[in-house]
Every structure is written in structure tokens, then in C-alpha cells.
């Protein structure tokens, strides 16, 4: 793409504009997603930032994007989040339960107002302790509104498997709610 006539300053500006567009389009959904995975909005910012870094290192002035970008971003953010969790795990040297549970107890920065509905809280807690694959699918569908096919694109799993995961997850969450409600 090197054209001797091409002014570098313009190219840089165009590139920046393209990058800005990507950030503005995707930062909110990605941050929400990461925040759920990590239960920590600062770490979520880290994960999303890392994904963008990876992207922008390869970003040329006239890079065009298509639908694959979204899948790719969610995939990478997820991996970044997983990396962060593992790093945190190593740091804390804890091995009980899923790392997300540890993070969840922190609840830092995730100042979400819960509805007075207790079930919401229960469900969110339970979500945090789901196996990561199930958690991911739940978030991608219920938070991000992706279709099974899109989720398949992000996770690399077949549509049938996605359905399976999601069903197991929702079933499990139902159980939790029932258990706690029954216990009250």
C-alpha cells in the first residue's frame, strides 16, 4: 500500500479515524462483557485495551472492517480476561473454586445497582461460578444479544454445542434460584 504520492500525515489521520470508529463502536459492549467476566471494571478496561492493542498494531490507514471484527474482538477480549484471571490466580495463590468467584468477592468497581429483586443478585452470583464456557455463552446471548450462530463464531464451537452449553447454564441457574428461594 505504499504510494509515493501518498502523504503520511493524511494516512495517519485516516488511520486514527478508523481506529477511533472501532473504539467508539465496540468499547461499550466489550467493556460490559469483560466486566461481567472479571467482576471488576478496571480489569475489564485492561482486557479490552489489550484486545484493541492487538488490533491496532496491525491496523493500516485504510483497513476496512467487516462482521468478523466483532467476533474477533469478543474472542480476544475473552482470552485476555481469562489471562488476567489466571494471572490474578497465580498472584493470590488461591486454588479454591473458580477464580471468578474470588474476583467476585471483591466486587470492586462493579457498582451496578441491583434491582431490589433478590433473584437478580442470586443469578449474578451463580453466573460467576459457572464454568467459563457456560458463562461466556450466557453473557454473549443474554447480555450481548448474539444469535447462536454468532456465538459459534466467537467461541469457535458449533451451534448445537452452544445451545447445549446455554441450556445447561440456564438450567443450573434456575436450580440455584429455586434452591435459595426454597431455603428462604
Amino acid at each position, binding site marked *: *500500500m505504499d504510494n509515493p504520492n501518498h502523504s503520511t500525515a493524511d494516512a495517519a489521520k485516516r488511520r486514527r479515524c478508523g481506529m477511533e*470508529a472501532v473504539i467508539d463502536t465496540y468499547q461499550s459492549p466489550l467493556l460490559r462483557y469483560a466486566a461481567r467476566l472479571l467482576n471488576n471494571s478496571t480489569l475489564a478496561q485492561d482486557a479490552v485495551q489489550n484486545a484493541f492493542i492487538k488490533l491496532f498494531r496491525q491496523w493500516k490507514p485504510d483497513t476496512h472492517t467487516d462482521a468478523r471484527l466483532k467476533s474477533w474482538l469478543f474472542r480476544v477480549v475473552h482470552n485476555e480476561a481469562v489471562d488476567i484471571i489466571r494471572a490474578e490466580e497465580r498472584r493470590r495463590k488461591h486454588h479454591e473454586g473458580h477464580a471468578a468467584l474470588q474476583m467476585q468477592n471483591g466486587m470492586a468497581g462493579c457498582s451496578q445497582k*441491583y434491582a431490589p429483586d433478590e433473584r437478580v443478585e442470586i443469578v*449474578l452470583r451463580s453466573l460467576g461460578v459457572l464454568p467459563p464456557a457456560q458463562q461466556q455463552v450466557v453473557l454473549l446471548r443474554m447480555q450481548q444479544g448474539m444469535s447462536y450462530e454468532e456465538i459459534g463464531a466467537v467461541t469457535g464451537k458449533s451451534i448445537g454445542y452452544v445451545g447445549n452449553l446455554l441450556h445447561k447454564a440456564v438450567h443450573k441457574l434456575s436450580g440455584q434460584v429455586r434452591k435459595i428461594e426454597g431455603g428462604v
Partner: protein
Amino acid sequence: MNPCEWNNKLTAWLLGELHETEADALQIHIDSCAECNAAAGDLRKTLAVLSNALNPESSSQSEPKLDSTRRAMLLAIQPEPQITSGRHWFFRIHPAFAAAAAAVVVLSVVMLGIISIDKIGMNVSKSDFIKACESGAEVEMNFKSVDGDSSSPDTPNGRFSVSGRLITDSKAGAKEINGTPVRRDALHKSMIDSDPFAEVTESTLVSFDDAKMDETIKSDPFAEVSRDRSVGFGSAGNMDITFDSGVKTKPVVTEQSKSKQGLSGQRRSLSEVGGGYSYGDKAGSKGTGLMLSAKPQEGGVQEMENLKIALPKPQFTGTPKDLNGLFFYSRREKNISQLSLEDGRAVKNHEVIDDFSVKPQVPLPARVFDVISAPVGGKAGSEGKLGFDLKPSTAEVGDSLKANASLGSRIDKLEVKPEKSSEQRETVLFARIAAPQEPHNALAKEIMLRRVAATDEPMDRVEKSAKPVPPISFNPFIMTSADNFSTFAIDVDTASYTLTRQAIRSGNAPKPEKVRTEEIVNAFDYGDKAPISSTFRVYQDGAQSPFGAGLNMLRIGVKGRRLGREEQRPAILTFVIDTSGSMAQPDRIGLARQALTLLVGQLSERDRIQIIAYNDHARLVLEPVTILQKERILKVFRRLQCNGSTNLEEGLQLAYTQAVESFVPGAENRVILISDGVANLGSGSAQEILDKVASCRRQGITCSVFGVGSGTYNDRMLEQLANKGDGVYKFLDSADEVKRAFVDELSATLNTIAKDAKIQVEWNPKVVRRYRQLGYENRALKKEQFRDNTVDAGEVGSGQSVTAMYELELMPGARADAELGTVRVRYQRTDTGRIEEIETTLKAASVLRPAHKATNAFRIAASAAEFAELLRGCPHAAGAKFQDVADYLRPAAMDLTLDTRVKELLELVMAME
């Protein structure tokens, strides 16, 4: 299937992800299996809770952003230096993957006629392969449409998976094209450079080696190695390319194997053009998508540095939210161009990259820039030139340059005018947009505005957010000598009546702001006969006022003609159904279902209906079908599940997108919204929706609204939607109302006879001293607006009537033959499109009649009007009591034994006593 095995499918079913046949079978099962029924209920509840939990209401929580430090840091990232080695994973997720298989990038080949597509994969030996290549037959590259419409082979649509494979010998470092050796890794690199999302997979020569492929897959979770189907990153395409050292003539590209379900193939042929290769429908024709070209260099190795492989761009097939990255400027949309250019953010000199410094023998069709795709042709309609006006400017290059970032959808190609001089780098870019209807520009404009609104820059041209609900206003008495013109737009909605009725029946006083006098009055039939030939006929009726001493009341009735069966135009209906959690009750979704069932029973084969359901997000659950698919329509509706929040914005956007796509000129194109009115709307988006509705109405798509439910009922928004959309607004609180709206009055709802209908009464100051209009406060117009054809007024359906009530104080000594004034009705006929105006003189005779001698019709009208005014707390009605109204109405109610509605009114009035 074992009954219990159904359990696994429940979630998918609830989320609408099951195939139609499976879903039906499951529905049948659920109806008979209590266990699954209970389980489904459980899951449904959990999904609702999940939805609430993960999609918070407060907007501040739902739009997190990267903090400014990080953002700045990201924007300062420079591209990494170029790769020089040929073995490279573009995105290094784990360092381990850098040591990926040292195989060669593979492109496999199928020669038509020599190897059928079925044999691709395991049965091709290398020698056969090379032989095939050497025979020089033309080969084809296949583009598979992953989604979207590919019914026409010339108009690729949707997302593509591009596949083509060449096989190479990994030992040979180079290949020859036209006798010139080409370096494989350079090709590889260029490919990557041009598309960061391309994943170049490497596999050995024997691209059909399963073991190798397995290994590749294991080592990189993101790789998908194809055997006999398109390689995907996600579901879009990906290109593996290698060279065949054995090929001496041209590189051959292959056709991939059979499509997956729902995919179809597009064929392009790859042929040699000048120093490189281009592909298209025929040699030399304009290709959409792939351009392989090489820049030959003097002597030696051809470096292929400028090899540019641009993959086809996805067609816009989604909802507008998919376009949030788009910056779509159209010269025709003045506002947008002003938005983009005149705010000091002019587009700076924008150069086009020229990769082909050598002119090929066959001129390349265009400088295939980044943006390629689009239907060649597309839907019928006008084409607009999309111009980027560029002037040399010292101002900061602004957001407008993002235009190049991801222009997709309907841009054919960018053609570049030759540069004027090397100094004056002014280049004007034009892109042809196949723009079927203006709504797309409005759509684009809306997207633009959303985009701008999303940035934090103050733009005074950005639409202001919806105005707050105005306080109740009452028409005052007007001195005829001061202003003797009363002008208003016609309104045939009756929702206020139904709402009021519902409130009273549940034992509450209706909220004054929900009571609209004209709607109460219009809810009754006054027995006016429909005209046969003319579009409207004006009736007048009156008496001395039964409620205000010394006053008279006048009823003006405008009755529309009924369209004959052959005059009725086909209806293209887009049903938009709210399937949020609040709709889950039988008196809501159940009524909506009834409505649809009745409607389908009334339609003809010329009509079409499509259904969009929305809760957290919107989805098309039924594409446009005729009533020949009646069962399917009803089935689709039965399977709808109600949960989640109410994303009215997305629902309407998708609905309008669909309505625009299925628009049939000359038909009645309608969006019909059914909702319980509980909508979460972001600030500003209410106004956007209304603008969209209004702009689509101007193109011929009207919007009617049917409200259901009660309680937290956002009536105002729904009424405004119907107003802007020129459609009716009705409230369905019972099966009766549903029948009334969708059977009895359906013709009126679906078939219009007049648009933009306005009424003007010119009072005679010699006879009428003062006058007061009852109702129509929201529809009042200025005198000069009566003949202003741009004013948006109401729509009148076949056989509908409109009633206006006035309270009058006459001059002393007014006689029966005196003229009260003139009433004019001005409207645009829907069939001819002509504007017509009719005029009738109002005589004093009827209004002089004593109240007790008035006609039944008048009794009803006067009572209805007074009732409404009392409910609203109108000061002019302060003296009267509900009992007076009831007493006045009773004789009429008893007289008209067959009219249940009048009796109903009487009950309501009595209930308020």
C-alpha cells in the same frame, strides 16, 4: 424423541433459536407434558431475571467507556513493522503459535470438468492436479454467501466466504507466473497486509493431508482449516494461497465444495490481466471482490509486493446498529453534508492509493480500493451520487474521513478522478450508491446523527431530544370578530375512548391528560351515510346546548366513502410485536394474537404480511408471506415467547428496514405496532424514532399503533407514533375491541381514501358571536396552514367518519335561515393523488333547536363531548355534572337499542357520578 429429551431443547426454544419444525414439535409436546411445561416456565423466569440483571436500565451503566488515558494510548499505537518472513501467524495470541506448522500456504484447485467438486478433498493427487493446472483451462473462484440474499448470481449479497486454493510445493521457494518467478512469501505478506483479519493458514503440500490439518487446528484455536468447505474465521471467508511450482501459466483458483445449507455460490473467473490477475464475471469485466494483481518489476524476481487482495465487503443485512461504524454522506442530504463539512471539519485532500503503477493491457476496471462489495444493480430505484466534497483546508481532518474506514453496503466502487496536479492533491471521490428509496438516506442520516450524538461534540444540527409532555390545554372561547377561522387536522384515533373506558371500569378516574375529547366523540357512529362518488360528505347537526345556558352546540360530521372491493389496494403489512416480559399476559399477547388471527382471515392473496418481534433486541420472525401461508403465520406467532425488556427503538428500526425492503409502490404499506407501551427509550431516541416514522410516512409507509394492557402505559409515545405515521391509534382492551378494529373497521384501517385531511370552519361574525371547539387541541392549525400542502394532517380510511363539536354563542336575533359559516375540507385523494377541497355552508337552523328536540346522534355527540370535557377538568364545563350528561344521553341510549356502544357510554357516565 423421548419426552425427557425435549428438555435440552427448551432453552433454545424459548430464545427462538429452534428450527421451525422442531419448534412446532416441541410446542406440541409441551402442551401435553406437564413436566416440560413446568421446566419451561422455570427457565423462562430465569431468562427474564438474567435479562434484567445483565441489561441494566440506567443508561449510565449501560455505556461504559474506556478512560481517556487508555483511549489516548490506543490511538497513539503505530503499526508494527512489516513481516518479512513467510511463516507468520498474523495474530499472535500465544507465543507458541508463532511456531506454527512450517507448511506452505495452500490453495487447492479444482478444474471444472476434470475434477468435479465432489471429489475435492481426498482424492486428488498432486500430479493430477498439476496436469489439470497446466492444461490451462479457466478456473473459477467461488464466493459463498453466508447470509443475505444471493438469488441473483450477479448480485452477491451478504457475507462471503471466499475460497480458493492453490497447491504448492513447499520445497520450492518460488513459482513462476508467465515465466517470472514469484516469491511466495511476498505474496503471503501482501495478503496479510491488505486484510488484517485474513488468516493465512499454512499446511503442507498435501493439502489434503488430514494429519497435518489436525495438527494445525490443535495448535491454533482460531484456525479453521478447510478440507472441503470454505475456511472460515467465524463464518466469513479466509484465503489460503500458495503457489504451485508446477504451474507455468496462470495460477488456478478453485471452486470450493458444496455449499452449506442456505448458501449459494457465486462464480467469478480468474484470468490474467496485464501483469496480474483479475477476476470477474468474464475476463476484463468488473469484479466484485477479488483482485489479484502483481506489479512486475524490471528484471529478476517479481516481488509481488503490491499484491492486493481485497475480500468482499459484507452487505448490509443487519439492523442499523450494525452500521455504527459507518459514515455515510450523501450530497442529497443537505443536513448531513452540512453536518460533516461546514462545521470546520472539512475533509482534507484525500488521496487514493494507486497500487498499479504499470498500466495493464486490459484496463483494470477501477482502482479497487478497500471498499468493494455491493450488489451490481441491487434493487430498482434511483442511484445517488455520493460525493465527498473536498476542499483544501488547513482545518483538522475530522471525522468525515472515517468514511473510508468501513463503508460497506451499497457502495459499488469508488471511482477516482485523475489528479489535477501533483501539488493540488484534490481528489473527488464518487461512489455510486444503489439507493432504492430515500428512506435509506434517512436511515443513513439517522445513523449519522446517532454517530454524531454518540461523540461528545456539540452539534446544533443534531435533532433535539423529545419535548416533554405538554400540559393539558383547553380550547378557549374565541370572539368571531377577532378570529373567525378555526382550522385543524383530522384525527380518527379512538384510543382515548378505550383507555378511558378501561380506567373507569377498573374503578379509577381516568387521568385527565389521557382523555382526548375528539377521540371520545369519534368513538361513536352517528349514522351519517357514506357518499357514493365523492370522497367526503359533510353533515351538520345541532341544538341549543343542554349544558351551557345561552349556548348552542354544533356537530360537524365528515363521512368518507367506502372503497369497493376492486378499489382496495393490496396491503403490505409489517407487524411489529412487543414480546417483552410485560406482554406475557393473555390480555396482552393474547389479544395481539387474536388481532393477527382475525386480520389474516380478512386479507386476500394480494396482501403480504411479515412479522417482527422485539424484546431486548429485535428479530424478523417471519419474512413477507401471503395469506396462502396462513397456518405458518399463525404458527410463528404462537411460538413467540415473551420475556426481556422492551427495546422499542430497535423493534421499530428493524420494522422500518423491512418495510422499506418490501415496499410496493401503489400498495398500502403499513407498519402495525402492537405494544403495551412500556418502552425503555433513551433520551433523544424517542425523537429519532418519531422522525424516522415521519420520514417513512412521506415515502408512503404509514404506521398504525394498537395498544394493549394497562397500568404503566406510555400512551403519549404510542399516540405520537401513530400521528407521525398517519395511522390509527387504537387501544385493544377486549376481544370485542379487537374484532371491531380488525374486522369491522379493518377496511378503514388498511385502506385509505384521503391523506393530509384538514378542516377549516370560517365563522360568520354577523351570526356567531363566539365559538369554542371541543377537542382537537393537539391538532390545531393556523389559518394559512389549511392550504399548505406540506402540513402533515390526518389520514382517513375507507368509510371512516370524523366529527368535530363546537359550542357557539350566537348573536342576538339570529334566525333559522342565517348562515353560521362555511366548513371546508381539504385533502389529498389516495387514489389519484390530487388535492381536493369541498365546501359546505353551515345553517343556523339545527342549532336553534331546543335541546330536548335534538336528534339521537346529537345527543350522543354532545354527551360524549361534555363527558370528556368533565373528565379533563375543562373550566368551561365546570358548571355541569355527570348526572346531567347521563340524563341527556339516556333517551338516546334507550332509543338505539342495537347500539351497545351508546349504552356503554351511559354506563361510564353513570359510573362517574
